[in-house]
C-alpha cells in the first residue's frame, strides 16, 4: 500500500536533478568574484605596501605610489555624499511620509526610475554641460561630485524610501492618535527605526561612487597632477581613472602595478560593504518588534 512506485522514483530523480542544477548556477555566480579577487591578490599583492598607498606616482606613472588618487577618491566620494545624502533623504521622506498617491508622485517615481537607468557616460556629459560650463565650476572636485551625486541620488532615495516604509504603519497610527504631527512622528519614531536601512543605502552608494570612472573623467578627475587637492575647486586624481590610465594610456608600466591599483580600489569597496553589513546586523539586533 505504501510502497514506492515507479512514478515516485522518477519524480524524485527529476527533483534531485533540478536541485543540483540550481546549486551549480549558484556556484557559477560566486566564481567570478573569487576569480577576480584571486587574480588581483596574486598579481597585484606584491606592489601593496605602506609606501605604495602614501606616495605619489613617479617616473611617468610607471613607478611610485597612488596617494593622490586615493585621496582624490576620498574627496570625490565625501563631497558627493554631502550633496546626495541630505537631498535624497529629504526627497524620500517627502515621498514616503507626506505625498499621497497622485499624478505628481507618479511622475516623480518615474523620474527616479529613469534617472537610475541613465548610462553613466550621459551623466558625465550632462555634468560637463551643467556644472563645468554653465555654472562655471570648471573641471573640479565640485563639478565631478555633483555629477556623481546626481547619478547616485536614485539609490539613496529608493533605499531610504524602502526603509521608511519598512517601519510598521501601526507606529505612525499610534503617534497620530496621540496628537503627534507628521514631523514629530517622523523624527521620534519613523527615522530612528529606519536609520539602519538608510545607512546601508548610503554605504552602498559610497562603494558605487568610488568605482565610477566615466562621470568624473571630464568633470574633475585628471590623468596626473603632482598636487594634492586642497579644496573643492581643485582638480584631482582618482583611483578609478588612475586604474584606467595605468592599464591603457601609459607605456612601460610594470604588469603588477595596475593589478595593485585595482586591488586597492576593490578593497576600499569591499571594506565599505562589509562595514555596511556589520552595521546593519548590529542595528537589526537592537530593534525588535
Amino acid at each position, binding site marked *: 500500500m505504501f510502497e514506492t512506485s515507479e512514478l515516485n522514483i522518477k519524480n524524485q530523480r527529476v527533483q534531485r536533478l533540478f536541485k543540483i542544477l540550481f546549486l551549480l548556477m549558484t556556484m557559477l555566480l560566486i566564481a567570478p568574484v573569487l576569480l577576480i579577487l584571486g587574480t588581483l591578490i596574486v598579481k597585484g599583492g606584491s606592489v601593496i605596501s605602506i609606501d605604495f598607498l602614501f606616495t605619489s606616482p613617479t617616473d611617468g606613472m610607471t613607478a611610485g605610489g597612488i596617494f593622490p588618487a586615493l585621496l582624490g577618491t576620498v574627496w570625490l566620494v565625501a563631497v558627493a555624499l554631502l550633496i546626495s545624502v541630505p537631498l535624497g533623504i529629504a526627497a524620500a521622506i517627502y515621498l514616503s511620509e507626506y505625498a499621497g498617491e497622485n499624478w505628481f508622485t507618479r511622475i516623480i517615481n518615474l523620474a527616479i526610475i529613469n534617472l537610475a537607468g541613465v548610462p553613466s557616460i550621459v551623466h558625465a556629459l550632462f555634468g560637463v554641460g551643467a556644472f563645468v560650463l554653465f555654472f562655471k565650476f570648471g573641471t573640479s572636485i565640485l563639478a565631478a561630485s555633483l555629477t556623481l551625486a546626481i547619478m547616485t541620488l536614485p539609490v539613496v532615495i529608493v533605499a531610504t524610501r524602502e526603509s521608511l516604509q519598512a517601519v510598521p504603519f501601526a507606529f505612525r*497610527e499610534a503617534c497620530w492618535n496621540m496628537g503627534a504631527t507628521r514631523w514629530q512622528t517622523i523624527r521620534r519614531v519613523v527615522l530612528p527605526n529606519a536609520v539602519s536601512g538608510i545607512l546601508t543605502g548610503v554605504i552602498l552608494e559610497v562603494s558605487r561612487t568610488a568605482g565610477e570612472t566615466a562621470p568624473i573623467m571630464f568633470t574633475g578627475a585628471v590623468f596626473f597632477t603632482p598636487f594634492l587637492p586642497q579644496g573643492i575647486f581643485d582638480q584631482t586624481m582618482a583611483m578609478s581613472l588612475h586604474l584606467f590610465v595605468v592599464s591603457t594610456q601609459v607605456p612601460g608600466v610594470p604588469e603588477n602595478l595596475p593589478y595593485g591599483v585595482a586591488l586597492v580600489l576593490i578593497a576600499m569597496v569591499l571594506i565599505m560593504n562589509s562595514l555596511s553589513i556589520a552595521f546593519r546586523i548590529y542595528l537589526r539586533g537592537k530593534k*525588535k518588534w
Partner: protein
Amino acid sequence: MNTSSQAIGNEQLDLAIQTGKLNLWYGTFQALFDVDLDIKQGIITSLIGPSGCGKSTFLRSINRINERLGYVRIDGSINVFGNNIYAPGVELVQVRKQIGMVFQRPNPLPISIRDNVLFGYNLHSEGKRAERSEQDDIAEDALRQVLLWDKVKDRLNSKATELSLEEQQKLCIARLLPVKPGLLLMDEPCSALDPKGTEAVEELIWELRGKYTILIVTHNMAQARRASEECIFMLMGKVVEHTATEDMFVTPGKQETADYIEGRYG
C-alpha cells in the same frame, strides 16, 4: 478652542458625546445613517453589532482619525463635552490629545516602557520638558492606574515590545493618561489577547470607570455584558438600540437586538 476636557456649563454637562444626524460616507459608500447618540460622561458604554455595522467607523470619527483616509465625508455634528469637534478652527492635535484611542492590536512604540508612557506627555509639552523626577512621577502614576507598575517598575528602561500582549495593551492605555484625556475610545481592545489577558484588561477598564469616559467597541457580547454600563447596538450603519447594558441583554427592546444577542446572526 476649549482646551479643558470639562464641559462649559450647560445642560449637556453630563454628556461626553452627543451626535446629531451623523452621516458618514467612504467615497460613495454610506457607512453611517443619521446616528443620534447621547453618551453619558464617566461611564463605560459599549458598542456592539455585527462586522461592518459601522461601530468602528463611528469610534474613529470621534477623534477625527478617519479623515486621514481623505475620501471620507461627514455630515451632521459630533459634540464632545459640549464642543463641536467638527467646528472650523478646531485643532486636531487637541482633539487627539483629549480623546485617547486604544487599538485592537497593542501598538507600543519600539522604545523603552518609560518613554512609551511619557511619549504623549512630552509631545504636548514641547520646549518645557519636565524635570526627570517629575517625569518619573508621571510615568509611575500612569502605570499604577493601569495596574502595571508592580510588574514593570524594575525594567522601565527595557523595550516595550518585549512585554506580553496583555502588558503591551495596558501600556497603550497608560500612555494616554498623562495628558489627562476626558474620553477613551477603545476599538476591540481585547481581541488580540488570550482569555487571561482579556480578563485582566477588562478588569482594568472597569477600574478606570468614573475617572474617564470610556467608549468600547466589542465583538464579544459577553464582554459588553460584563464590562459596560450602557450598551449601543448598531446594524447596517444605524443605531438600533441604546439602553442600560442589563436591560439590553435581559429585555431587548427590538427584534433585531434580540436576534443578534441570541446569536442568530453576526
